[in-house]
Every structure is written in structure tokens, then in C-alpha cells.
């Protein structure tokens, strides 16, 4: 609080009032509940990894082997997945759809967000609110009419249909996120450029976009994650096995009566999650700012 030196003031601020608490008290009120919650949150992943590398006989014999551990781990499930099924193809489809839809959405969102925040055209506020409402329209009430729209355009069973439809999920979110970023860019910069004779397009490309790169990264990776995650449209629009995306394929193609399905099912879930987890590990801060930014706006 009111300490004499700057240094101690800074540390004091970071600690807040935690120095008032005794260690045992912190243990019970903070570390123990946090530990339990973390265990619960992470257990399904541990279980996923463990099952994916467990030999089949250990999976179904829970009396001889401790189910919480694995002896003689095997990569059989993963290699079966990658070399005997169409999994690489599904991964490629998912990647292709996610990248395509995300790129289209970011371009559209940058333009829309700039127009709403900086061009201040007539009705800009209304458009902003409408886009926010578009964010609230869930896919589960749209998939039936969209299926007939897609059918009418001749895009049924084509990944292109997803590339065109996913932007409706991503544009509202990215536009709101980018609006927040664009608002923080000082408009004096743009005024200078306008006086120097730059067109609106040049201002956007040469001034606003370079300054909003962190926001663009956030919007990009968050949109990418949403695409990878999307299920109901992919399930409805894609019919033939080689065209499916990973989430749909894992649910539909691996599920049979076999009690040995679990190893390959978990391997499929694990491999399908890994790209996102890796991406997340590199861009944690961007994820958090994307998630909280769009909500706070």
C-alpha cells in the first residue's frame, strides 16, 4: 500500500493482500481446490493418451493390469490410424476447410470492422449491433435450411460448402474483436495519411492492418479453432467418407460393435486434437485475448 520505496510498492501490488494469509490456510483454500479442479479438467486427456498407447489386452483386462497406468506402450493404434485408414485425408480436409474459411473471414472482417469503426458511415452502429446478433444465431437452428441452400447451389458433399458457410460463424466474432483493436489505433495517424493523399484502402493496408497484427493473430487462431471444432454443418453437408472432417469421421467411421475399437478411437481423438493444442501452446496469450476481448466489447 503506502510503502516508501518504489520497489516494495510494486511487489506489494502484485501480492495484493495474500501476505495476510498463513501457509496452511492458503493450502486449504487455494491449492487444494485448484489441484482437484485441474485434475478433473485434465483427466479425460490423460485417459485419452493412455488409451491410445495401451495394448488391447490391457484395455479390457482391468484386474491384472492397473488401468491407470500402461506397461509396454504401443503405437499400434496410431500407426493403424495413419496408415490403414483415411485419417490423413480427413486431417487434410479439416486443415483445408479451416484455413480457407478463416482466411475468407478475416479478410471480410477486417474490411467490415474498419468500415464500422473508422468510416462511421450512416447506420454504422446499427450494422455493428446486427453483426453482434449474427454472433448469437446458433448453427443448430440453421443447418436444415442451409442444407437445402447448399443443395440448391450444387455444393452438397463438397468441402467448399463448409468454406462458404463457416464464415457466418467467424465473421461476427472476428469483426467484434477487430473493432476493439481498431478503436485503439490513434485516428491521428489516419488523418495524417489522408492529408498526405492516401486513399482509404491505402490507409487500411499500410497503417491500420500492420498496427492490428496482434488482433489479427488472435482472430485467426481463434477462428481456426472454431472451424476445426465445428461439427453439425460438417455432419450434415458431407456424406462420402473421404470428404469428411476429423470430428465427423472419428464419430462415424470408427464406431462399430468391436470392443477393441477404443484404442483407435482414442488415437483418432488424440491426433485430431494435437494440432490445436500445439497451436494453443504457441499462442496462449492471443487465445485468451481473443476470448475475453470479444466478450468484453
Amino acid at each position, binding site marked *: 500500500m503506502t510503502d516508501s520505496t518504489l520497489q516494495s510498492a510494486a511487489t506489494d501490488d502484485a501480492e*495484493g*493482500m*495474500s501476505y*495476510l494469509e498463513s501457509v496452511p490456510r492458503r493450502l486449504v483454500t*487455494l491449492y487444494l*481446490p*485448484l489441484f482437484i*479442479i*485441474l485434475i478433473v479438467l*485434465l483427466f*479425460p*486427456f490423460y*485417459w485419452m493418451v493412455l488409451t491410445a498407447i495401451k495394448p488391447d489386452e490391457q484395455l479390457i483386462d*482391468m484386474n491384472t493390469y492397473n488401468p491407470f497406468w500402461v506397461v509396454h506402450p504401443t503405437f499400434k493404434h496410431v500407426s493403424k490410424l495413419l496408415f490403414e485408414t483415411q485419417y490423413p485425408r480427413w486431417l487434410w480436409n479439416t486443415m483445408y476447410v479451416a484455413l480457407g474459411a478463416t482466411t*475468407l*473471414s478475416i479478410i471480410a*472482417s477486417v*474490411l*467490415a470492422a474498419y468500415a464500422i469503426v473508422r*468510416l462511421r*458511415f450512416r447506420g454504422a452502429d446499427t450494422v455493428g449491433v446486427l*453483426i453482434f446478433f*449474427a454472433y*448469437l*444465431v*446458433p*448453427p*443448430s*437452428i*440453421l*443447418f*436444415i435450411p*442451409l*442444407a*437445402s*441452400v447448399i443443395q440448391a447451389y450444387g455444393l452438397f458433399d463438397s468441402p467448399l460448402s463448409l468454406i462458404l458457410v463457416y464464415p457466418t460463424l467467424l*465473421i461476427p466474432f472476428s*469483426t467484434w474483436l477487430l473493432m476493439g483493436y481498431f478503436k485503439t489505433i490513434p485516428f491521428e495517424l489516419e488523418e495524417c495519411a489522408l492529408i498526405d493523399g492516401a486513399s*482509404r484502402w491505402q490507409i487500411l493496408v499500410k497503417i491500420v492492418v500492420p498496427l492490428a497484427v496482434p488482433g489479427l493473430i488472435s482472430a485467426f487462431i481463434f477462428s481456426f479453432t472454431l472451424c*476445426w*471444432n465445428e*461439427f*453439425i454443418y460438417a455432419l450434415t453437408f458431407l456424406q462420402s467418407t473421404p470428404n469428411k472432417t*476429423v*470430428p*465427423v469421421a*472419428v*464419430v462415424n467411421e470408427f464406431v462399430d460393435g468391436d*470392443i477393441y475399437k*477404443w484404442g483407435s*478411437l*482414442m488415437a483418432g*481423438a488424440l491426433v485430431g*486434437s494435437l494440432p*490445436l*493444442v500445439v497451436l494453443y501452446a504457441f499462442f*496462449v496469450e492471443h487465445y485468451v485475448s481473443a*476470448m*475475453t476481448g470479444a*466478450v468484453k466489447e
Partner: protein
Amino acid sequence: MSTVQASIPARTPSADAVSRWSRVRADRNFIAVWFMLPAAAFLLLFLAYPLGLGVWMSFTDARIGRTGVYIGLENYEWLWDDAIFWLSVFNTLLYTIVASAIKFAIGLYLALLLNRNMPFKAFIRSIVLIPFIVPTVLSAIAFWWIYDSQFSIISWSLTRLGLISHNIDFLGDPNWARASVIIANIWRGVPFVAITLLAGLQTVSPSLYEAATLDGATSWQRFRHITYPLLTPIIAVVMTFSVLFTFTDFQLIWALTRGGPVNATHLMATLSYQRGIISGRLGEGAAIATAMIPFLLAAIAISWFGMQRRKWQQGGNND
């Protein structure tokens, strides 16, 4: 460039035309139309139009492969007498209310824990978000395996602890199935609630708590009179999203139970898919989907007015 050049000679007719053209080109409304065009095209073609089309389809007897004819309210009358539809409404409300309430409670608690000072703070926070990152269907499949009727690790552990004598059929018994999907949904939703509320908590100045402590406030009073009022706007937004996404959930149910056993976990979204796409009765499926809209509007309205009231109490907007 062209604006400056063209505005100087304004006498000859051609120059007049040029200046009008360039004035139009420099007009912000005109530019804005072009800037808005891509986003508007996507949202109109693939969001607004299907939304209207869905409502229209609910008044037709459309099936897969054939456009329907207008049949008035027949689909809705049919649904009104359909016990499975009402069961799905009940399930959806139960699922939404129970899961959202628990997600809020655990999420807020976790946010308060994460907001305290501790070693490896950033690392722990990033771990918390992982369930939100992994595709829902894939983590749902992990839950499916955890809930397996024969090899469930939960049944195994409880048996070993001597608490139960035979395996629980998590996804085979109607009530267990409901509880199981709700728990999976909570697991998946808590990180989102916690991390967004944490972002709100970090904007609360620690000096407020210090002042309150000096005045003798207990930790509950600090929460009730400082944290909660300051957090209300963000709680309203987060819970609106949470309720909307829970209410319209499809993928978790589809991966875990597909609506079974005996429709005990059918939500309106899964029933709509079942009737509309699998059975091919698009009109009926669209009617079920359209029946979700009033609930969604109610949820949005409640949170909207909740936020307005906060703004009014704080005497201004929260920008």
C-alpha cells in the same frame, strides 16, 4: 489524390462530372458499402436467408429431395401432440438450467482461485483453458470411453473403493445418462466461464479490497459488495453466451448418446437433426429448430435487460 486535383477546376461540364464522381468516390457511405460487401454477402446468403428459409420450411411439408408445399401450422400441431418433442423441450431446459448454473458456480469459484497470487500463475491459467481448445466431439469421445458400460474407469474405481457392487450403466440408464451428459457439458464449459470472468476480475482494483478489509469486511462481504457488483456486466455477457451455447448444444449429445436411451437425452437440436436429416422430414425438423427461437430470444432479452439495469445503476455506459 483525385479529390484534391478534381476539386480545383470545377467549370467545364466534364470536370463537373469528374468532380461529382470523385466526390462520390470519397464519400464515406459509398466507400463503406464496398468495405461491408464481403461480410454482408456471407451473412445475408448463409445466415439471414437460411434463418428466414428455416421459418418458412417449418410451414411446409418439405422432405429431402423435394420442396414442400405450404401446410400452415400442421407441423406445429403435430409437434404439440408429440410426447417426444415435449420430452426434448424438458431435457433441453433441464440440461441448460442445471449445466449453466453449475458452470457459473464452478467457473466463478475457479476464476476467484486463479485471480489469487501464486507461483506458475500463467502456466496454470493456460492449462485450465485446454478443455475449451480441444474439439468438443473429440473430448466427448473420451467421455464416452470414461462412461463405458463395461470398462468405465469410474465404475472400476468405485468398485475398488467398495462403494458399488456392479458397474453403473452411465449412458444406458435415462437418469444416469442425463447426469453424464450434463457433467461432460460442465467440464467443457467451465474453462470458458472461468477465464472470461478472470479477465473481468483483473480489472477490479486491489485497493478496493484493501480498503474494505481495513473497514472490517469479511471475505464474503468483500465478494458480495465489491467483486459481484463490479463483475455483473461481464457475468451477464458470459452467461448469455453460456446459456445460448448450452441450449443449442448438439455435438456433445450426438457423440455421447445420440439422444438415447429412450430419448432421455434428446435435446431440441438433436431431435431436429434426427427428424429433419436422418428421417428426411425437413419441414418437421425445421419446425423443431424454429421452436427454439423464442427460448433464445428470451435468454437474450433477460441478459440484455440485466446489463441495461447495471448501466443505469452505474450512471453511464460501460465502454
